[in-house]
């Protein structure tokens, strides 16, 4: 919905600040990545709501580049909607997104946002990578193109397709699916961006275009079921695309395949693991259990929760397009750096993720903190790939 649809609600925010915390105050600091880093009230959910009302509803402030920078510092992690005490709490993230749409219309977005959107429009991905190369990650893996009649389309997404760190997870997921015996395939060069970040950055027209293109491809190929590597893709495909496609995040599928015996985890994986909930799987889609059920089903894994977990998980800082625009990045209080330090405090040797964006962000943070020898970032798909191999780990 457009900002005008929320006009009667935007000014209802009191800036009381509940939105900055975790739900049970179990954590001493703030759980809003943007406020935690910048520490000015303008960079808080309430501050944003007041600025949006002043600049984009009442015209008391002139929409500016600085306003745009503030709006795009938000990772849209949804902690505010989760923690707000008022009836309108669900609408907070909708308003933030609608405000970005208004800024796109006014052509007042930060340069990195423009670049992201232009790249997706021109190339079907934000990295300016050639469409023909989109499936290169799958070479020599045995993962084949989707064919009519396959049960699942494995939708990889832009990050898993092009980012070299995340490609490891993409390959691992494909290998595990192969081991499970499911019939599936990828789109390769026919896959284009799912549009989740385009939507979050406020380019509604482009998002509609991507939806139409992807939907046309899915229908042409007779796709009924989709499994995604990325929770971002999962969120867009499940909640914004046609409901004729049944969409799964891969952790949901793995959990079911373990239960049915199609995936054998008896090889085990002896180590201490902590798990980071991605916002688009957790707070947006309330899937907290599937990843944990996988990890706890694997003999030898000791799952240790971080202080902030599930609905209280601290965003890696990559949401809302920030993994690319990096508006919130830089310095010790970068969300991903804080998060790897929290993971380290658990004593775990592996920080497990289930999102290529989180993986990319946390891997960079690990290097920035110099923790490579103490902690490893692994996607659950990679852990499962090792467990379901011939000898376990």
């Amino acid at each position, binding site marked *: 919905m457009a900002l005008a649809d929320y006009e*009667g*609600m935007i*000014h*209802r*925010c*009191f*800036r*009381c*600040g*509940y939105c*900055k*915390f975790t739900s049970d*105050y*179990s*954590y*001493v*600091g703030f759980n809003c990545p943007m406020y935690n880093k*910048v*520490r*000015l*009230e*303008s960079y808080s959910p309430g*501050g944003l709501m*007041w*600025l949006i*009302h*002043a*600049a984009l509803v*009442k015209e*008391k*402030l*002139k929409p*500016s580049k*600085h*306003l745009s920078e*503030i709006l795009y510092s938000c990772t849209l992690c949804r902690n505010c909607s989760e923690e707000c*005490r*008022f*009836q*309108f709490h669900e609408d907070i993230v909708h308003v933030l997104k609608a405000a970005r749409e208004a800024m796109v219309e006014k052509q007042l977005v930060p340069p990195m946002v423009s670049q992201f959107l232009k790249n997706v429009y021109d190339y079907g991905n934000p990295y300016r990578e050639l469409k023909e190369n989109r499936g290169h990650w799958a070479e020599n893996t045995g993962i084949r193109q989707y064919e009519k009649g396959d049960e699942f389309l494995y939708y990889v997404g832009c990050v898993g397709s092009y980012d070299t760190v995340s490609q490891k997870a993409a390959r691992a997921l494909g290998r595990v699916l192969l081991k499970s015996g499911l019939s599936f395939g990828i789109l390769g060069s026919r896959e284009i961006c799912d549009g989740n970040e385009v939507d979050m950055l406020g380019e509604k027209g482009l998002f509609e275009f991507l939806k139409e293109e992807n939907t046309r491809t899915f229908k042409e190929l007779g796709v009924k079921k989709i499994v995604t590597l990325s929770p971002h893709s999962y969120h867009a495909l499940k909640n914004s695309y046609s409901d004729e496609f049944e969409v799964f995040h891969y952790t949901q599928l793995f959990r079911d395949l373990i239960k049915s015996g199609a995936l054998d985890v008896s090889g085990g994986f002896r180590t201490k693991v902590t798990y980071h909930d991605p916002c688009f799987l957790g707070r947006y889609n309330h899937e907290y259990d599937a990843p944990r059920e996988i990890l706890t089903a694997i003999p030898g894994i000791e799952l240790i929760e971080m202080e902030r977990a599930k609905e209280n998980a601290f965003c890696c800082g990559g949401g809302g397009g920030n993994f690319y625009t990096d508006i919130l990045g830089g310095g010790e209080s970068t969300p991903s750096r804080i998060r790897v330090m929290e993971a380290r405090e658990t004593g775990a040797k592996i920080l497990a993720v289930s999102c290529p964006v989180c993986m990319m962000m946390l891997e960079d943070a690990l290097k920035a903190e110099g923790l490579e020898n103490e902690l490893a970032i692994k996607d659950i798909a990679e852990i499962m790939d090792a467990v379901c191999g011939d000898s376990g780990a």
Partner: protein
Amino acid sequence: MDVYGSLVEIVGEEFVSDQEEELYIYSRDSGAQEPRKADYVVAPKKVEEVQKIVLLANREKIPITPMGGGLTLSGLAVPIKGGIVLDMKRMDRIIEINEKSRYAVLEAGVTQGALHSHLNKHYPHLEHSMPDAPPMATIVGNVVIQGHGHLSVSRGINSQMVNGMEVVLPTGEVCKLGSCSVSPHWFTRDPLPDLMGLFIGWLGTTGIITKISLQLLPKPKFRDLLTFTSNELDLLPDFIFDITQLNLLDNLFIISQEWPPWAQGILYVPIVSAQDEEEFALKIKLHKELLRKYEGKITLVEGKHAERMREARLPVPPVTLGVMAADTKQGGGFEYTGGIVPIEKVPEASSRSVEIAHKYGQPYLLGYQLLTGGHSMMCGLAYCLNRADDEDVEKVRKAIDETNRMILDVGGVLWKAEAPAQRLMMQRMDPNTIELMKRVLRALDPNAIMNPGNWSE
């Protein structure tokens, strides 16, 4: 170098702004007071930075308004005469918890939520007196405005639980008060001259508190509340006297609101606690037995309404009815007159509050809290307002002014009073008291840079 450049040099570019967006946010709060524009927003991290900012402000004759959570609702952290708003929340270190002497040494930006979380995690047998405000309120902010907490009946208001302070004086010196001025330990306020009074209740006009030592208290194993209801307002002083004669309360709320209908009478919500089950049962029993004297006139509420009250009022931090009620007008604005009155004046203040609310077309929303052993009552008449409707804001501002005058008429004083309400009090204040206040301000702040316009005629 200009002021902005100097501020950047002190705290770094990231934590200074003179841009319209920050100035807009720091120039208003959720209450009904007029917005007043700040010129700079600065978020220091260290006391040395605060000191340098104060010296700069003296040099340039720029006002400074210190800000904690910014949740007074009466514009006390909104600058009256422009200048620098000093957002203290980056100074957020919990420096020390002394378990045996039960105190916490905190930087000025530590929030209620942060201390609560820290104690829960590391010292689950200790607690601090937590106000009804959202957890974003700071400990120092609450102390400066003489705020109360969930232990205000048994232990006093939060400014009475301060053992020591570090203050940056308006002329830039850093000064320690309390035992920490003579010892490394922040354990007591006595038996020294009580200089902390120079910074409590002065609303940031006398200096900037950068550290504080707050008393911690044993956390009880059992805590519960009772809900009593009555339609006879005149019984209130006698009942408050009787209930405080038991001397067993942690806290006592009194609530009366037009909506929902079951809350229209007077709801008494005593909260009691104990370390032992038998002691706890006895305390509950004694409070219930009080009702015999008031048979049929003050009665126990049970069932879903009692449970609703328990859900709303028992958790610390509270899921307050005030927070929920604030949205009844769906307008994002809320302010209440915090009149502190003698117990015997509560019925008159209440009935006149209802009249004023109705005169301004508002449903009445009264939230009272007994203070410090039962010597006085904070009578809050709350107004919801629609920030998007200038006429509504103006109407509420007038209603608040009228309520303030009424509170003074019945012999009360105004808590966390907005600038116009401060002036109302000063009109009735002993002239020698005003002169003394002026002398103190002149002595401490010769350039009148600290939150000017407050405590000013």
